[in-house]
């Protein structure tokens, strides 16, 4: 986020430092496991096995990773413009509303490949609109976006409860959710990929939204480092004064960036709503919006890093589910702790190990410090 130390080689900056931060987070999480009265090493093994131990487990891991790629990108894009979008949760929730409306309207008439692009547009649009008001208030009224996006998370919650209890609830149903979608709004699974690798996966929620997430990550990389708008966005993020001097409109950048960020968070909803459960319910976001903060930080704002970090957190989610079967005291809330610790070590304490690692490198290979000059991307 800040760059007072700009001299480490890139692979250290993007590789070693995140790994050290992660290790710290896991060590502290291990202490919590001890407090619960379980063996942290056994817990860790159960998690790793649960995340990668079979084709099915890997498929689940990637399914969860799909959520976090979108929300991680959402946080990262805003962060590059100097904005802290803490409202991914609400934007994803409202994005699901868009997906639901499209799915309910089209699923009986057209095949999924017609519904899908329309739903992508609706998810992005709804998510973007939910980010628009905080963006507008930040740009034109100077209201702190951190506070307004937090408020909008709560407002989104109320909105969705209302929508799912009233207009979107099928007649005669008690549960606050839509009807099940028909085949026209069910996305194809990716189990066949595992078949190619020689692994049998009968059922998993992994669907083509995962591929969409990968493509989106690449597009966001292009946007940030290869386009004129990305250049403006990064200028604003580093120095609002320089942006004004260069004739860039801060208001325009803030609004467009937040629309993109909200849109990305909204697209997350495709994965559970059309890819897995085939309806809109109250719990499909399940904290993924917040995980995006940790993912963006550990991925150091770079889409490639975010994909890796998202898979890591996907593994934590999937592994955590398996773990909770083996150790009933360790529920999936363990992930919330790890996520908090990752945000702490990779975000707030990012400078703690850096000087230390820097000294280490200065002594080990003085040369690499001077040659640490590469593309900023």
């Amino acid at each position, binding site marked *: 986020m800040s*760059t007072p130390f*700009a*001299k480490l080689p890139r692979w250290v900056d993007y590789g070693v430092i995140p790994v050290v931060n992660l290790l710290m987070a896991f060590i502290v999480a291990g202490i919590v496991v001890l407090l619960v009265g379980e063996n942290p090493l056994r817990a860790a093994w159960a998690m790793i096995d649960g995340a990668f131990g079979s084709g099915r487990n890997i498929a689940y891991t990637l399914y969860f990773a799909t959520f976090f790629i979108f929300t991680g990108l959402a946080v990262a894009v805003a962060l590059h413009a100097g904005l802290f979008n803490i409202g991914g949760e609400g934007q994803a929730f409202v994005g699901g509303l868009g997906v639901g409306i499209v799915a309910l309207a089209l699923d009986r008439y057209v095949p999924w490949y017609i519904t899908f692009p329309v739903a992508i547009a609706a998810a992005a649009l709804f998510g973007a609109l939910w980010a628009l008001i905080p963006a507008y208030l930040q740009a034109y009224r100077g209201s702190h976006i951190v506070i307004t996006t937090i408020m909008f998370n709560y407002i989104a919650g109320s909105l969705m409860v209302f929508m799912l209890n009233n207009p979107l609830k099928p007649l005669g149903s008690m549960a606050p959710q839509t009807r099940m979608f028909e085949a026209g709004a069910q996305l194809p699974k990716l189990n066949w990929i595992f078949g190619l690798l020689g692994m049998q996966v009968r059922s998993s929620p992994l669907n083509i939204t995962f591929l969409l997430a990968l493509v989106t990550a690449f597009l966001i990389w*292009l946007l940030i480092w*290869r*386009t*004129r*708008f*990305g*250049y*403006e966005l*990064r*200028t604003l993020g*580093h*120095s609002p*004064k*320089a942006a*004004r*001097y*260069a*004739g*860039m409109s801060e208001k325009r950048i803030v609004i467009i960036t937040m629309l993109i960020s909200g849109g990305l968070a909204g697209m997350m909803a495709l994965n559970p709503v059309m890819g897995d459960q085939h309806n809109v319910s109250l719990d499909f976001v399940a904290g993924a919006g917040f995980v995006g903060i940790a993912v963006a930080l550990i991925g150091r704002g770079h889409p490639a890093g975010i994909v890796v970090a998202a898979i890591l957190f996907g593994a934590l989610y999937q592994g955590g589910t398996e773990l909770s079967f083996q150790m009933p005291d360790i529920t999936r809330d363990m992930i919330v702790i790890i996520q908090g610790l990752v945000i702490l070590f990779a975000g707030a304490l990012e400078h703690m190990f850096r000087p230390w690692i820097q000294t280490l490198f200065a002594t080990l290979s003085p040369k690499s410090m001077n040659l640490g*000059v*590469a*593309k*900023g991307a």
Partner: protein
Amino acid sequence: MPEAAIQLIGINKSFGPVHANRDINLEVPKGTIHGIIGENGAGKSTLMSILYGFYQADSGEIKVNGKTASIKTPNDAIAVGIGMVHQHFMLVDNFSVLENIILGAEGEALLKSSIAKARSELTRLEHEYGLEVDPDALIEELPVGLQQRVEILKALYRGADILILDEPTGVLTPPEADHLFRILKMLKDEGKTVVLITHKLREIMAITDNVSVMRQGTMVATRKTSETTVGELAELMVGRRVLLRVEKGEAKPGAVKLSVKNLTVKDSRKVTMVDDVSFDIHAGEIVGIAGVAGNGQSELIEAISGIRRAVSGSVMLDSKPIDVVGIADPGELRDRGLAHVPEDRHHVGLVLPFEENENSILGYHDKPQYLKGAFLDLDAIVEDAKAKIAAYDIRPTNPHLKTANFSGGNQQKIVLAREMEQDPGVLIVGQPTRGVDVGAIEFIHKRLIAMRDAGKAVLVISVELDEIRSLSDRILVMFAGRIVGERGSDATEGELGLLMAGVEQKEAAE
């Protein structure tokens, strides 16, 4: 030889790779005013911050009044009787004078009695040194001269016998500076020791008893002021004969390029910073605006270049209006041939974490030669950056290096190259050589004059009067937001100084 108030022995201090102080020895006799002179970045402020306990030396010894002093924090310095007036005042703006004075020297846990004590002590100091100031005024409502007085009072309140002043006149008008000097002399007569850090030779000659010269982190000489000359000190400061005047021919002014009429600008607190200012700049001339910092020069060029909204008035560029009151878009102004080198290159003119090549298009990033549709044309941008690096002798020569890793002079060259190479008709330059090493100063001055000779209109603002005098064909003087006089390039420092102080000519003649 009187006893030494301060003795520094073999002081060393590094900030990462920068060796800011190298084996410094210094002796300041008691009851004298001792000047420390050197260019920006020579290490003067670092040395004094070490003496004040703000930084710790890597090695070396400090003796105060002959006794070895271990100064690890400002508290230790205050305890041995050292007080410091910083270049940027260390005051809390929304606190009263009294609150600022007692901060850190409250005495006890409840404020009531310490405020009462401070109030009576302040009255005493006022009488003794003529340092009047309203104890209940808020700092943000006081003019800078008075704020500085509060800083001096803070030090005296803490019982300082040794007073360090870091560039105290940078924000003062010449009469305010003279008043300060009278106060310093009075303090000396009371037996206090004063250390004055400055890069202005005039001040050294006017007030000090002894002077030490620093250059690139080392102490190069100490002289009795009465036994040295401005020329000798200048030479010691830069290490070679100073080029006081850049060679330049007669200006050949052409048509009016930029015309400012009745421009008024207010700052964010609604204080009028530029007050009904009018002037023209012609092709082929350099117009310099002299003035003490904070008299509206910054706001003036920000308004003209579209960064800050004006309240009223008009600006014509090539006889066509710039919407300075509404939304003047700096990007559009660039298209119309108005280039701007801002005063603050660290936060405005450059994005320090960016690569050099990215900064070389800042503001011109929407020009077609740098774009392929909505995408940046990275090859074209890097080639362009390389050409500028060669033409302006920017070092290191790597366009992919982070801009933060370039020196001040090279950073300024990156900005200048970017703005000049677009071949603008009008060039506005704020503080062309602030924080720039001597070699680069000469280069930058020559480039500016070359722009003039190529028929461009150049507007320069600078707080360095020497720079204004050596560059400008015409000099405008700003005081309190107004242009109070216009002079030719032959104006003397004295008459400009009076104008900068807001002294009307009639008064000056009397």
